[in-house]
């Protein structure tokens, strides 16, 4: 079966430097793949290339069987929903109307119905009529997640969906993304927190300086040699009842033990 999201030899430049350097990557239906890597490794660029926001200088980005560049904007949006890291909304629109913007191809009432369903899915139905400017950052993040869900696209591209959220909100967002993957969507999400990535993803793709450094099951892709080479961490994975936990220290400081997980407020990757 054709993967929902494909990059083949994807190369792109961003402000004079190489953002992507021959990236190969595929995400199939029903799969949740986490993109990790240090700041500037190309996580956002991978997502933006697939969303049609970053033109490639070489290689190809595909949504299903069609190249991103060959699709009309509307078709592209129907194949891949986009969850931005930026959570600023210019006007004080009610949450339900923001969520309805995820389904612009539906008629008004259907779009609003889809929006209400999506808000319920992220436990934000009580916020439906509240203005987004009167919300906390966490509430607005859920409304924007609902907007991405309202599209019911084949694939979902989420750029740092848990950045700057409380731990419980981070878990809620990842839980819902997992549920979407189980329901058959192809979900590609960039994360800073390696422990969260290892716990929630079916597969982890490690990016380093615009290249794929590792791609495989979480603990394999994030094996100690990769942690050392890409992240400069001397770390190991500890099995716990809640899943794997990364214990590590900065590489240069030797082998003391310190937990480096727990959602660092992330920047654009």
């Amino acid at each position, binding site marked *: 079966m054709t993967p929902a999201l494909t990059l083949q030899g994807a190369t792109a430049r961003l402000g004079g430097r190489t953002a992507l350097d021959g990236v190969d990557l595929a995400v199939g239906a029903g799969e949740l793949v986490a993109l990790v890597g240090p700041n500037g490794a190309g996580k956002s660029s991978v997502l*933006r290339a697939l*969303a*049609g*926001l970053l033109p490639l200088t070489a290689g190809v980005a595909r949504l299903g069987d069609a190249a991103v560049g060959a699709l*009309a*904007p*509307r*078709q*592209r*949006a*129907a194949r*891949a929903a*986009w969850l*931005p890291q*930026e959570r*600023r*909304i*210019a*006007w*004080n*629109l*009610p949450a339900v*109307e*923001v969520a309805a*913007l*995820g389904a*612009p*191809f539906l008629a008004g009432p259907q779009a609003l119905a889809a929006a209400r369903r999506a808000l319920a899915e992220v436990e934000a139905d009580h916020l439906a009529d509240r*203005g987004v*400017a009167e919300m906390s950052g966490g509430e607005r993040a859920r409304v*924007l997640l609902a*907007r991405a869900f309202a*599209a019911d696209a084949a694939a979902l*591209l989420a750029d740092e969906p848990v950045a700057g959220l409380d731990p419980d909100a981070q878990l809620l967002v990842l839980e819902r993304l997992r549920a979407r993957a189980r329901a058959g969507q192809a979900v590609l999400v960039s994360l800073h927190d390696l422990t969260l990535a290892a716990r929630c993803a079916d597969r982890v793709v490690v990016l380093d300086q615009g290249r794929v450094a590792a791609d495989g099951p979480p603990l394999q892709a994030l094996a100690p040699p990769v942690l050392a080479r890409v992240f400069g961490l001397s770390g190991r994975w500890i099995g716990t009842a809640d899943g794997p936990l990364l214990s590590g220290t900065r590489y240069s400081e030797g082998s003391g033990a310190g937990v480096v997980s727990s959602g660092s407020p992330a920047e654009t990757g």
Partner: protein
Amino acid sequence: MSPPSGRRLALWLALALALAGAAAVLVGESALTAGQYADALLRPDSGAGVVLWQVRSPRAVVAGLVGAALGLSGAVMQGLLRNPLADPGVLGVSALAAFAAAVAVVLGLAAVPGVVELAALAGAAAAGGLLVLFSARVRSPEALILFGVALSSFAGAATALIFNLSPSPIASAEVMGWLLGSVQNRSWIDAGWVLPAVLAAAALAAAAAPGLRMLSLGEETARASGLPMGRLRVLALLAAALATGAAVAVAGVIGFVGLAAPHLVRAAVRGDPGRLLAPSALAGALMLVVADVLARITPTDQELKLGVFTALVGAPLFALIAWRAAREWRL
């Protein structure tokens, strides 16, 4: 839900506008008796009839059209630039339109029909294009306002330079008076060409409305959601430039209506920049018709210029909105 409240608001505004229009026709500097009013209604070519139907009516209609054009233009610009301080006056669109029109006048092209109007339109379009280019490269909303202020100052200085160098002081004085902003002595001929310009701008703005709503999420997200940004920019810019250019060509520079009108009705449409357009145009029309009546009945030796009047009311309002926006932007 909000759509009915937005529509109800538009109905109320239209009703208020009709009342204000009636007042603008009935009230004026020359006090008429009941007999004269009756005369004017029965015989439009009587002295009173001419005052009502050939002087006050076209003036009120032009005031309404100019207000609608500015209210629409302000709403479109605020939506496109995602900035509550955007306004054709503040950002220099009116000033550049006025500069272009003044150039046409000084070059002696005023006698050729349509040239001054087209010059104003071209000036407005050029300013709009510069603003969009700037806002695509610099994201900060404060920086955009500063750029607009610079553009406005520059266009003002260039206009002053023209007067400075102009050989004919009489032409200069005339243009100067027009630049202050007024709808005095405007005729049905003026109303006749402003109306189609405003209607065309409204149609363009209506086509841009869904895109403006999507743009609330930011340009990148809107593009990823299937919005063709290039098309939206062209539609919105043309709408704003056409409306502002027409307003400036017929009435000179009238500031702050484009800023205040969207602001007055935004809460009623719950912030939606698409549904804001029609109420904002109506609110702008209402504001200018009322302002023109007030300017006419204010007992001064020289009649108050409409542009002076709106600036006196509008500038403090701008400061208030800026203060609120600054808190929102956490400056």
